[in-house]
């Protein structure tokens, strides 16, 4: 096809109602178009820019920040938020929200630990945790779609409460000690084969889990019809129905995957503490949602990328780690997270503004 140099043409003039010739055409100033394109490109890397800025500032302020051991710690601490954020991302892309991932994590961990304590089978324990998380996701999806609850906020808020109550009940409000060795390895293990961390190594196994899940999710969301449908449903649910996309199934499926990923996060948490605690996931949903927002996903749906959600999760983890290293009161962490959310979303608002400018520029150069 013919792509004109500056893309001002919509339809090439043909017979009939003929637009004025090229000589009379009023074109938008090219500098304005280039400026906008540049601004949009810059804002698109916004989340990464925030992360890089944080890393630079912290490496100047703290000697140990860039040590391999500390980097390993950050990766290990951030793994749970990363996994939860990836699940949350899918839900947010479809204009939803899953408030239950923290409680889901707690309940899956408790059930996994109970099965391990009572039956001693690692396979059964892992399976029990994964099934728990997935079923919770399925129930969320069914409540929202089939139960016709007005918004996923309601279904998952109810689940937040119910799952956390069940976790406390089953565990008698106590931490269940012990976890299968394989779970301990993925949650707390370090890879000695990666040099720089002495005999024990510095690179956490949990980071490998995050990388594998992120790669899989990238392939699935970009490469499969299912992934395309998720973005279509988020972009325009009504049009998705009109185009024959099975919207109810797509919606249910994202809550199922989100629940499954919460269970993966539960395994990482169990491994980290060699235990299943009924409060281990408390408030984790807020971190997950914050990570997704900092990563530039839109609550209006249809927009959000795997890599950006990971970046958002890392921003939160790095900020916490940095404030710790600098000996700053831990309560500042929450205030800092709040500030970063506002900054990230303001950047997104700015991006929307530039996009509208760009669009009207297209129309101007068209007429």
């Amino acid at each position: 096809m013919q792509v004109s140099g500056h893309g001002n043409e919509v339809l090439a003039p043909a017979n009939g109602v003929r637009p004025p010739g090229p000589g009379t055409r009023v074109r938008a100033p090219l500098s304005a178009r280039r400026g906008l394109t540049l601004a949009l490109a810059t804002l698109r890397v916004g989340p990464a820019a925030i992360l890089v800025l944080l890393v630079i500032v912290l490496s100047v302020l703290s000697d140990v920040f860039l040590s391999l051991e500390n980097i390993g710690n950050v990766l290990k601490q951030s793994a749970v938020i990363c996994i939860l954020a990836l699940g949350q991302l899918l839900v947010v892309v479809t204009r939803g929200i899953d408030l239950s991932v923290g409680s889901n994590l707690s309940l899956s961990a408790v059930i996994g630990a109970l099965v391990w304590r009572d039956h001693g089978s690692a396979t059964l324990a892992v399976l029990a945790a994964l099934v728990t998380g997935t079923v919770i996701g399925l129930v969320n999806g069914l409540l929202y779609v089939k139960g016709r609850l007005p918004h996923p906020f309601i279904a998952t808020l109810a689940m937040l409460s119910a799952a956390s109550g069940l976790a406390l009940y089953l565990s008698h409000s106590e931490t269940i000690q012990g976890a299968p060795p394989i779970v301990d390895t993925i949650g707390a293990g370090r890879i000695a084969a990666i040099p720089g961390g002495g005999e024990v190594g510095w690179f956490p196994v949990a980071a490998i889990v995050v990388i594998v899940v992120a790669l899989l999710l990238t392939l699935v969301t970009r490469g499969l019809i299912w992934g395309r449908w998720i973005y279509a449903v988020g972009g325009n649910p009504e049009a998705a129905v009109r185009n024959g996309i099975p919207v109810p199934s797509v919606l249910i499926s994202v809550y199922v995957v989100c629940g499954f990923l919460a269970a993966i996060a539960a395994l990482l948490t169990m491994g980290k503490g060699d235990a299943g605690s009924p409060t281990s996931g408390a408030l984790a949903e807020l971190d997950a949602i914050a990570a997704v927002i900092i990563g530039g996903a839109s609550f209006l749906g249809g927009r959000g990328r795997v890599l950006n959600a990971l970046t958002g999760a890392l921003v939160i983890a790095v900020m916490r780690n940095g404030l710790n290293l600098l000996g700053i009161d831990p309560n500042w962490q929450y205030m800092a997270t709040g500030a970063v959310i506002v900054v990230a979303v303001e950047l997104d608002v700015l991006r929307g503004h530039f996009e509208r400018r760009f669009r009207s520029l297209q129309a101007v150069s068209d007429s």
Partner: protein
Amino acid sequence: MNAVTGPASVLQVRAACKRFGAVTALDGVTLDVARGEVLALLGDNGAGKSTLIKAISGVHRLDSGSITLDGIDITAANAMAVRAHGVETVYQDLALFDNLDPAANFFAGRELAGPSWLPRPLRVLRHRGMTDRTRELLDRLQVTLPDLEATVALMSGGQRQAVAVARAVAFSSRLVILDEPTAALGLRESARVLDLVRRLKDDGVAVILISHSMDHVMAVADRALVLRRGRAVGETAPTPENHAQLVAWIVGATGSQAI
């Protein structure tokens, strides 16, 4: 009335009636559209234009009368079934996915993917194939977009309309219904959409065009059918000479009294 019949007629609507409670929205409307013909539907607000196209596209079901498409009776077919028979409707709100690029918009719900033994959601998208097909089609319709990879959100009103119309054409072998395709557009963008309508016609697609702009109707339509209070009150070629007559039918005056 001088309806076109015979083998060239793609769509035949016969004595279509539709009531909503006490309101008679369609009262015995009969129309024909031939292959490669642009039929303009004119009429004031509430004349029944929307009800008629919704009945044709399967959104509303007629109380009586019949609709046939190349001899197939689609009177009772629902929207999906009518689409499957090669009828596409471009509504005023366009129904585009702003967050997706033109190719993804074209193939939403009918993605090219494989292998076929996998359940449909798990099939691998053929990005290249979809982009190539999109490019081919836009080329054929002489639609030029600045960037085929850009999301539709970044396009102007005319470009978006072009994508919506092209998408309709891509999958409609028989009939395209355009509901006010130029309503939100500027002068030049309108001209380009009208050019696009002409090319549909050249491609042998039947087109039903709803427009409030008599200029646009005269520019592209072969025939104009005027609806008033649910009835077809007149039909003629939309030429400058017939302009006064068409307006008279629309407002309900007799020909000599108009204007």
